[in-house]
């Protein structure tokens, strides 16, 4: 080990500008005339494969990654500070946007947090509809990643098929909520308004379509030898490392842990639904991807269950003129498509939260990146980045 190496810390701070050891890490190996040097490559922030503005500084020996450090914060918008300046009903619009692919699930989390603090009862029908919308949002999110994962590996066709489904589902969601991406449908105490006529029938039809297409995706990708060769054994994540990082969602389930908030701490009507939690075996990219496809099927099942059991009734509750949560703190964790999203809400009795900490799934998932990328090839990095599903807005808030 050269002196330079000992100067840099475990996290490879030598790579980062502004860090204590600024400058390029050069590890010179070999003696005599043939010396090699590691190449310091910057993936991002603008890069087709990083799902947004994520920057990964890697140290390459040929094609092998010796050290990788993700740098986040390019999309930091200060949501937590903004939430302190808005009242409990306005933060709904904020939380739509940190994980924009799972907008309704985020809203749901915040609404539940506020409702629990205020001890509000949400009407039955509202709960069923919330579950329905949350599952549709989950399918939307998963379809996005099904498509983009193939795209990053070079399979340019599944993304079009996935987006075709997404278009149909977004059309459905738009008919109920008015939005295709940011739904703003949940409210404290229920929902904004009831579903339009024909929504439930359309939902039933759409689940059938999604199931059929999901089988196609399985054929297209699971049955493709090159895809399997690119993803099997790539980026394995052991269970204890995943727990130590706080990784959740499909990434954790792929490691073999059936941890799902809908099952362990049911909220809304999930307690009455049999939620299937698919698990993988060794947490590699292939498993993560397969868990995703299975989750789509599981969500279709949940939607069917909701369609069979939905009740009628009101969807809103009477809110006081001023919504004030009593003093105290609560932490609510929901199973979002990307993982478990938690909101730690501290209230001082006023109209706006004192502190809203957003525990976003992607933040913890990306924290595991240095572990996953260590020793991987550059092409594997793409497979790993694509399979640890994340959204940069979620990482940075």
């Amino acid at each position: 080990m050269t002196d330079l190496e000992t100067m840099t810390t475990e996290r490879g701070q030598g790579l980062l500008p502004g860090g204590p050891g600024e400058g390029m890490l050069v590890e010179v190996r070999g003696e005599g005339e043939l010396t090699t040097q590691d190449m310091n490559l910057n993936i991002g922030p603008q890069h087709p494969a990083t799902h947004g503005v994520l920057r990964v500084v890697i140290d390459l020996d040929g094609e092998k990654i010796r050290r990788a450090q993700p740098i986040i914060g390019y999309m930091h918008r200060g949501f937590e500070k903004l939430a302190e300046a808005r009242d409990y009903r306005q933060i709904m619009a904020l939380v739509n946007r940190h994980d924009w692919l799972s907008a309704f699930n985020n809203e749901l989390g915040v609404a539940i947090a506020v409702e629990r603090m205020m001890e509000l009862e949400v009407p039955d029908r509202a709960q069923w509809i919330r579950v329905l919308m949350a599952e549709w949002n989950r399918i939307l999110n998963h379809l996005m990643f099904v498509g983009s994962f193939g795209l990053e590996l070079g399979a340019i066709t599944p993304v079009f098929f996935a987006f075709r489904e997404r278009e149909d589902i977004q059309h459905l969601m738009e008919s109920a909520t008015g939005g295709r991406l940011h739904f703003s449908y949940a409210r404290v105490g229920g929902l904004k308004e009831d579903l339009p006529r024909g929504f439930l029938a359309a939902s039933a039809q759409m689940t059938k379509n999604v199931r059929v297409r999901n089988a196609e995706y399985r054929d297209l990708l699971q049955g493709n030898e090159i895809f399997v060769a690119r993803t099997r054994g790539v980026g394995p994540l052991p269970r204890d490392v995943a727990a130590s990082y706080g990784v959740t969602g499909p990434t954790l389930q792929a490691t073999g842990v059936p941890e799902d908030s809908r099952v362990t701490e049911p909220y809304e009507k999930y307690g009455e639904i049999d939620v299937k939690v698919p698990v993988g075996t060794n947490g590699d990219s292939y498993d993560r991807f397969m868990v995703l496809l299975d989750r789509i099927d599981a969500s279709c099942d949940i939607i069917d269950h909701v369609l069979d059991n939905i009740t009628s009734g009101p969807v809103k509750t009477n809110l006081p003129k001023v919504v004030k949560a009593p003093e105290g703190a609560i932490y609510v964790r929901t199973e979002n498509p990307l993982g478990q999203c938690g909101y730690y809400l501290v209230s001082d009795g006023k109209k706006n939260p004192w502190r809203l900490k957003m525990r976003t799934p992607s933040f913890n998932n990306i924290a595991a990146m240095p572990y996953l990328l260590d020793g991987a090839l550059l092409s594997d990095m793409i497979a790993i980045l694509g399979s640890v599903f994340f959204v940069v807005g979620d990482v940075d808030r």
Partner: protein
Amino acid sequence: MTPTSSASVAAGAGTSRMEADALAEFLRERLGEAVQDVSITFGQLTVTLEPASLPEAARLCRDAPELDFDFYDHNAGVDLGEEGFAVVTHLYSLSHGHHVMLRVVAPGGREAPKVPTLTHLWRGADWHEREVYDMFGIDFEGHPGLLPRILTVTNFEGFPLRKDFLLSTREAKPWPGLKEPKEVGTDGDGSAPEAPTAGGRSSEEGADATAAQAPVSAEEKAQASQIRAERARAKAAAMRAQKAAEKEAAQAATSEEAVAAGMAGSDDEPDAQAAAAEKTTGGDTAGEGAAAVAAAAGEPEPQTPGGAADIARSDIAKDAAAGAVGGDTAAGAPGDRPGTEQPVHDPESEAKVGEGAPPAPSGAPGVEAEGRHGGAERQGTDAPPAPSYGERSYPPDEEEERPAPSDTLDEVIHFERGQAPRAPGAAPPDKAVPDDDEDAGPGDER
């Protein structure tokens, strides 16, 4: 071969899950004096620990087989005001399914808060502690490297989530929601406009349409909206009458002032007003915004009902039946400042005063940052009220209910230059008058 299997786990995984009070007992037993406080709210356990004992307590949590908190969920900083900062670490056990929150109040107060690190126990603590440092400035002793800052830019000054770090938009204009609903619009009408929040409508609806919460037919909806529209129109008419009366009085006052100050002198009027403004606000050139902050942060009682009612009325006339955001009141409405008696804008008086006179300084330019753009100031006196929510058809059938686009744009332009917007239908100001050179008003932030 599919590697996935479905595991339908029953709720409350693991028979060895400990309830919150059992956990509290266990921790008190093992940690003894280190536990300063135990609180169980909403079924969740928060244990306040002595800061120095945090690593040991965390190690116990991780390693004790009954606890087995192997999952590091997150780490949150909380600003406690005078006390300093607290750091709440949330741990979870994958095998048992129980949670705990370890809370620590950082010693060192607000100047130099320090908390021992937990990175040697869980890998996830690394980034979370970096984030807490970035947001609050809490130093984690023993952390391998808190810098470079994780979320903000590297040369960022300050720690954003501290309460003394002010949001710049809030500095320019305070949060409209600081005003409670009942403080707006003292028109004797029982149903004052609701709080300016998105959910305000639901309470109104909930109050008067309890029966309508079941899916209603289209006719009932139309009827209800019809009723609302009529009520709004009546309210608007009442307000108009009141405002007309007030305007008479105001016009009498300002015309006297103008005559006294001399109409030719273009600077006198704003000077007089600016002087008045300075006297009351302490001469801040940020002017309206700071005044509004001061006013609103203190007791935001409407000093001149006319001023507040101006805005309220125009808003009502425009949007009340639509149930949209109500009165945008705290936003630097000059009426709020004690001691000044200016109307929000007064196109008639402006026209009266003459072309040479600069326009009266209107509300702070920051007003339009949130809420309506310029429309808040627009006198809705002559325009018919907007169609109610239920009646509106897209595209709207009646064209004349919307102002022509150019009018609105001119209004915005004039407004942004700090001038008063003219009433819809009024002639645009003469371009020969160099508007830009004039003192654009105290609210000029450019």
